């Protein structure tokens, strides 16, 4: 198996080419996941780029991204494989009068032709290297984790009628979780763990500059300082990177592109872009010493 990345700096620069600015922690862990051939379990608050990481790795390595979106009740037939019953029935009906009889038919209808591969099997059987994204695993039921253990540990899966299928290329696996349910120790043990937190001020400035070009550097610095300050206030929902970018775009739309344009009134009127709860907004207004809204 040839490694996808040569060094940690290469990870950083190639991810940056796809528009994903990775912190040193993210780049190091992604590099290790590739080198050690282990799945990567990513946790962290919403909107810090957990899913984006998998997409960026896929783009950077030119691999196909196969995604399994988990939800409550997702099962083997949605995640792994399913037999195409309708097609099997058609075949049985068509061959009803054939000479070689039931034995040949039985061998036949459980063959590749009638197999519908779902994301997990598709990733294992792919001819090309792939990136497998198992998104929001905590939403799925506990049973699906048992199914994943074999795949994540040995990169193989057993289909009773076909035997054991082993991956041709070891896929780059990313699992994301919002921790609404505690994942089992058995699953965690098989993965490298990465907690993506809110980025440092310096990294966040670069992200904003990249995603919302057109603001001058001083204003970007002020925007990021404001957001970092809001995060320290322990809100019900702290603003994430996505909201910082949204807010920067809001400022562009309002024509405020220089640091001097950033006034207390402007911040007060558009705080709703950053904070999504009324009591958060009120608390922030007090902490930042914003003027009371104009009475109409």
């Amino acid at each position: 198996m040839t490694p996808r990345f040569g060094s940690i700096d290469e990870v950083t620069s190639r991810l940056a080419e796809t528009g994903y600015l990775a912190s040193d922690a993210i780049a190091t862990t992604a590099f290790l996941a590739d080198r050690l051939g282990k799945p990567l379990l990513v946790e962290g608050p919403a909107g810090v780029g957990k899913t984006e990481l998998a997409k960026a790795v896929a783009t950077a390595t030119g691999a196909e991204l196969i995604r399994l979106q988990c939800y409550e009740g997702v099962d083997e037939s949605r995640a792994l494989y399913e037999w195409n019953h309708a097609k099997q029935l058609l075949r049985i009906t068509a061959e009803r009068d054939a000479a070689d009889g039931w034995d040949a038919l039985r061998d036949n209808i459980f063959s590749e032709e009638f197999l519908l591969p779902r994301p997990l099997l598709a990733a294992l059987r792919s001819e090309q290297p792939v990136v497998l994204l198992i998104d929001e695993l905590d939403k799925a039921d506990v049973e699906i984790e048992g199914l994943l253990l074999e795949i994540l540990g040995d990169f193989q899966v057993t289909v009773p009628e076909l035997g054991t299928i082993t991956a041709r290329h070891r896929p780059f696996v990313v699992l994301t979780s919002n921790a609404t349910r505690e994942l089992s120790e058995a699953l965690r043990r098989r993965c490298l763990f990465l907690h993506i937190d809110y980025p440092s001020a310096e990294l966040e400035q670069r992200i904003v500059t990249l995603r919302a070009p057109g603001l001058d550097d001083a204003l970007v610095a002020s925007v990021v300082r404001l957001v970092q300050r809001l995060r320290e206030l322990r809100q019900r929902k702290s603003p994430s990177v996505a909201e910082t970018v949204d807010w920067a775009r809001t400022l562009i739309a309002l024509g405020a592109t220089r640091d001097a344009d950033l006034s207390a009134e402007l911040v007060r009127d558009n705080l709703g872009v950053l904070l999504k709860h009324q009591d958060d907004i009120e608390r922030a207004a007090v902490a930042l010493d914003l003027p009371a809204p104009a009475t109409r």
Partner: protein
Amino acid sequence: MSVALDARLVGFARALRGHGVVVGTSDVVDAGAAAHVLGLEDRERLREGLASALLRRAGQRQVFDDLYDVWFPSAVGDRSHGTFEAPPATLPDRRSRAEELRQQLARALADADERALDELAARVVAELGALANAATTGSFSAQQALDTLAPQTAIAGALARMQDAAENAPGGSGDGSGGSGGTGAGVSGPAGGGGFASRFSRDELRSGVAAFRRRVEVETRRRNAEARGAERISRYAVRPPADQTPFLLAGPHELDELRSAVGPLSRKLATRLAARRRRASRGSIDVRRTLRRSLSTGGIPIRPALQHAKPHRPDLVILCDLSTSVSGFSRFTILLVQALAAQFRRVRILGFVNRVDDLTEQVLGAPPGSDLSSAFDDLSRMTRWHRNSDYGAVFADVVEHHLDAIGHRTAVLILGDARSNHTEPQVDMLREITGRARHVSWLNPEPARMWGSGDSVALLYSEVVDMHECRNLAQLRDFVSRLLPV
């Protein structure tokens, strides 16, 4: 990789286990492989690599970082390169040295100069933190260093420096080149000039001072580990993670940390409780509807109809001891219940010391996240004759005055250490409460081995109700997500 590194990793893993982090043998093997791939050149990258291999959840990161600094120190010796001066001997000397260092700190904070701060922390420990017996044991004290330096007093100086810089810099009026610090070297810190962002400079500096305190603590641990061995230091000098901190031992700082965990925890628990309720309401077959349905398929029940239980939320009555010995625990649990109130049909909160007072209005009426201490601090209506807790009298009081709150749908949660100050326990009264309620649980913040010792009547009560040990946040979370009736 060398044997020495392997031994280091094994010792590191053992120190992590000593702090309640689950580290398997396979994790240590992974860590070794990671160290092999990454090499030892970049200390921060090695930190991230080892963290990804050894950790399994985010709450353990603080412990990991502290121990990493002890086991993989950033330097050996005092890193002075001969520039540090000897620790001052007399008191006036110490004062003037502290003043000098404080000015340097103000300058470094204003410029947000990471390297200068790092160097300054090393110097503060070496010059102000050396204990009197340092010559023999080589020990340092972060407490002593920080008390002498008083870094919070550097904030005013740093603020003045920043204002000077903003006034002197060109472009403060907004001609395009504005923001003296924003584009310069100090992008990551409180270096920006005027404008709107300057109004939270003070708060940023305060965070900067807090970070500097942590730097000093890290440096002290490193120096002490050198003198006394990493194993010893990692056992005593590293704080357990927040969710392992015993409620009864938590200081104001720890309680603050716990309080900030309430919001995220309650959201998680709410999702879990909802999922449990959903799961409980499916699975059993509704025979009548299945038979009726089967008529359309010739009497063969192909599609079974399942029963949907009516959504049924229990009432919750919380009976909590607010006497000083356990009030930290009770307050925290009440905050959690307040955040979870939507999961229950009705919540009653009864506080007591030796008399019961209904706190429901004060607690549930307050907006989430607000400070509830005024409601808890007023003990006058919860005490009678003395200020010691008396569980027997309280249960009798509940039976006499508040029994209407407890019915067959009510779950009762009792919070307290069952230390009744040698009064009559009145187990019969508790039994009467148990007989009326759907379920009674008792959360005891003392370790189970202490139950029944001294004036504790926990063992008597635990024969009547389910008593659970609930020493820390991890155990409380476990109880709510698994055992609390919903």
